[in-house]
């Protein structure tokens, strides 16, 4: 895992530095005189050869210092700490949506294979995959916020509501911990549209894999045995069928986490969500090297970490798999 993260950071480091763009030029206004640019380049160490920059970067990294963002002028670590919770909150809830909708749809599709509900649920899933997140987001805002007025608009909380004191950084959790139920409720409601937008993306993949593995499993001998034992159909489906069908599904869910992070970039922009997705996009556009590398590190970590979790869940679901 450490090797993966270090590798990703090294690649991000070199890619961000060989592209022919000058972060300093992006940061200063077009009016800035050349002396100001030269001075800024010196300050950020951009006047040194690239291998020297890399050595300095790695040395600092092992001291727990990711450098200072050229754009925000704050330590990258602080920036990440500030933006990550909002993205994690969004990703977790959207994963709940993705699984909560995708899994039942997959099961229904499998059980009613070829019937109308099978087709409908597949259409719903494919729609989620085909529509770009920014479009889905704007569409949902148009319908549920602008036209129907059922759900709140962009942002994490209404403008006039004060944020709960920062403990975890997750708005809903923080307001619950502070006992501020008005903020909690509002926070939850603000989460629905962005999380659904993001979750819909995953629904398709989860539905598909749940459906096909469910179909496979239901033809197995032990299912027929279970039925012959006279067990109730729901027990057969959920206990014998689903548990075995879950293993490939979990793999896909794990992989989806990475895609959720990708989707977060667009979703966060549409919904004014102050998360890591927006932070990294803004950093990319400004060619803010230290921030780009820092964000790459977090993405690499989350990706490896979710894979690890998936492996552990395998072991739980299938006792034959054991890690030593």
């Amino acid at each position, binding site marked *: 895992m450490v090797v993966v993260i270090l590798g990703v950071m090294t690649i991000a480091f070199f890619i961000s530095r060989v592209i022919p763009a000058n972060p300093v030029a992006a940061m200063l206004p077009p009016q800035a005189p050349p002396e100001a640019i030269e001075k800024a380049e010196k300050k950020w160490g951009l006047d040194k050869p690239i291998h020297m920059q890399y050595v300095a970067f790695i040395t600092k990294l092992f001291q727990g210092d990711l450098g200072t963002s050229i754009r925000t002028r704050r330590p990258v670590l602080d920036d990440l700490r500030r933006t990550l919770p909002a993205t994690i909150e969004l990703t977790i809830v959207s994963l709940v949506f993705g699984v909560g909708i995708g899994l039942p749809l997959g099961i229904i599709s499998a059980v009613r294979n070829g019937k109308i509900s099978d087709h409908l649920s597949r259409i719903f899933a494919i729609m989620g995959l085909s529509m770009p997140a920014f479009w889905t987001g*704007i569409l949902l805002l148009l319908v549920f916020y602008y036209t129907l007025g*059922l759900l709140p608009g962009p942002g994490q909380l209404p403008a006039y509501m004060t*944020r709960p004191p920062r403990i975890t950084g997750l708005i809903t959790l923080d307001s619950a911990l502070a006992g501020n139920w008005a903020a909690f409720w509002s926070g939850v409601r603000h989460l629905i549209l962005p999380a659904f937008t993001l979750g819909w993306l995953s629904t398709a993949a989860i539905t598909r894999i749940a459906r096909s593995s469910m179909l496979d499993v239901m033809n197995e001998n032990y299912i027929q045995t279970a039925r012959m034992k006279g067990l109730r159909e729901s027990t057969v489906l959920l206990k014998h069928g689903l548990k075995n069908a879950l293993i490939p599904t979990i793999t896909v869910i794990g992989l989806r986490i990475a895609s959720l992070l990708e989707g977060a970039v667009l979703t966060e922009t549409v919904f004014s969500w*102050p998360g890591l997705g*927006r932070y990294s996009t*803004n950093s990319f556009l400004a060619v803010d090297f230290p921030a780009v590398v820092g964000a790459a590190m977090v993405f690499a970590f989350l990706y490896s970490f979710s894979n690890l979790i998936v492996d552990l869940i395998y072991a739980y679901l299938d006792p034959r798999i054991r890690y030593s």
Partner: protein
Amino acid sequence: MKKLSFVLVLSLLIFGLIGFSSFAKTPKDNLIIGMDTSIIVDLDPARSYELVTNLVIEQLYDGLVDFEGGEDAFKTIEPGLAKTWDVSDDGLTWTFHLRKGAKFHSGNEVTAEDVVYSFTRALELDFAPIWMLNQFVPSPDNIEKVDEYTVSITTNTKLPERLMAAIMGVQGIGFVVDKEVVESHATEEDPWAYDWLQRNDAGSGPFELVEWSKNERVVMKAFEGYWEGAPELNKLTMLSMPERTSQKFSLSKGDVDMAWDLLPNQVEDFRGREGFEIIEQPAWDITYLAMNIGQEPFDNVKVRKAIKYAINYEAIIDGIMDGAATPGQSFVPFGMAGYLDKIMYEQDLDKAKELLEEAGYPDGFEAQLLCQPTSPRKEIATQIQQDLRGIGISANIKQVVASQMYETYRAQEHEMIVAGWGVDYADAQSLTMPFAHCRTASDDAAVQQLAWRNMAVNPELTDLVEEANKEMNSEKRLEMFKEIQERVMDWGPFAIMFYPLNQVIIKDNVKNLKLPPNDSYLEFFDVYKTS
């Protein structure tokens, strides 16, 4: 039964989440603005240069002098923290007499000590915008405390009053900070407490900073002890909304009172709509096409003129800008003293072809056209490409992000470029220098701005720019500015196309909002809401 209760619980939950929602109107004493605030990186006035950051610190700080706000902004100079000022007989030393009783947010009184500290701090920190000040006030030694309420500032050259006021009244480096408060946060590594001031406020402006969460919101509250009296609004909130459609929805639903960044066609949706008002003002912002005189064939003035005649300015303003722009070809924008009201070029393809033939390019040529991949710049580039095809010139558009584009531009390596320029301070001198001052195109040029980047070397014109800088007679000075503009229009590397309209949409219960041509100078002091 079980199934029924499950459905019941589920529907209760869903209704709980969405059904009982009520949309609270924004509170009467709190003005909420939906805008893209991602550009704000810190709030230290010594560093601030961007429009949105300046808009925030405009509310938090005061300078020595001020300008009248609103549409007629910058026409008259008004007292700020300095009540009066006078100039020595040699025209070099300006003495400012501070108003007594003006207070910082901390409760400390604004004194000469703070003024000296603020300018010294800005000069020592030496951030990008400092060139505006140190071109005339090169060192902290030029700033002196005379007594508790008097400061004298010596300039290295005689300045007309207007230019002096424009520099002293510029946002950011012209603002006065609370010496005692800032110094209390200074450390050995950070003697000017930059680390602290970039996230906090130490001003004497009508609003004080309550909260700034990056990419989320900036919240300010009224400063009760403001020297002009407390502002009408109790709170001012800028909500970060990078997506324009979200701004539009939120304004329509009443979750924000004002949308800052709507596109012209989105603005049109609100025209005539009950409950909303559109506030428009030609911006001090110039959109232009530039040709690098250092590259063939743009060294030929006839080629440059041919291109200026080939552009369909009308199509750009009506078609691409949706009419939300004021046509103009002078580099001093509409509404600024010294503006030359003249349109020299209208699309005339025959004339353009003729000029091209005279220049020795009857069949045209190929050249690269650089622009940013953002609207409306890329659409403008496409229109120009199409127009130039009409006279046989094939322009290859290269879209690159700002960082890359300015790198090329500053290295004088472009051929043609579509770009923009904002006004740094409220005097036409801030435009004659970048657009017309170029004695040499080499690295030791005194001013390395737009004329230099386009290698528009013209010693005669440069002399005229310098002469105008020294001219004390205000009328004569403005005439000289106009002459410079005319010559640049005729000979220079720029085809200036328009000045965009600043457009903001407010709910009609928001009153007294006056948009200045430099919208970061918008003051919320008098703004109030009727409900």
